[in-house]
């Protein structure tokens, strides 16, 4: 599959701080990108997605930024809470394909 990678495998932040999780992609043909959250013992859960014709999209406490020039995607979590501790995956949906290609994941640990 195409390379969807992450810069850091683990990230530790203090409760209340903002978190930024990064992702690099290599396929210019991807037409949208998605972030998933996986809590321990559960399947991944959809957080937010962004189309390739957008630079930014906001949800509840989360913002996704897309920089197509450098093929970089980031997830920002505002006022990080203990319940945000999880593994976060970025994924891409290629223009002609049905399947999502997932990155290897970043583990976010929120400390009190």
């Amino acid at each position: 599959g195409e390379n969807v990678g992450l810069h850091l495998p683990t990230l530790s932040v203090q409760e209340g701080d903002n978190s930024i999780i990064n992702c690099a992609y290599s396929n210019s043909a991807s037409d949208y990108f998605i972030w998933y959250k996986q809590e321990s013992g559960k399947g991944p859960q959809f957080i937010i997605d962004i189309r390739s014709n957008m630079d930014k999209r906001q949800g509840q406490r989360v913002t996704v930024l897309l920089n197509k020039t450098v093929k970089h995607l980031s997830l920002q979590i505002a006022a990080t809470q203990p319940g945000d501790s999880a593994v976060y995956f970025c994924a891409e949906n290629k223009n002609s394909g049905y399947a999502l290609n997932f990155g290897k994941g970043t583990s976010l640990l929120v400390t009190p």
Partner: protein
Amino acid sequence: DVKVTQSSRYLVKRTGEKVFLECVQDMDHENMFWYRQDPGLGLRLIYFSYDVKMKEKGDIPEGYSVSREKKERFSLILESASTNQTSMYLCASRSNRNTGELFFGEGSRLTVL
């Protein structure tokens, strides 16, 4: 509430056994997927199905087959289990290809001895 149900949370099988992993979704979704998840490797696509009786190979189909006889059910089959198939298996469904929102089951952890 949407639901993807995997029949077994934990299985232990012996090398050479035939293994069936069942997945059922109650959302009338067109697309269904089987991924395996291993530490450090993330989620890797084994097979997917875009409609009933249709199937496509993913990135790592070797040693696996699938069946989708009904829209709500997608089965993963290991014809002859091997130790390197010890893994967490995740089933997912999606309404159609125009959305990136996959709904995942809670996973089936398979150990092959």
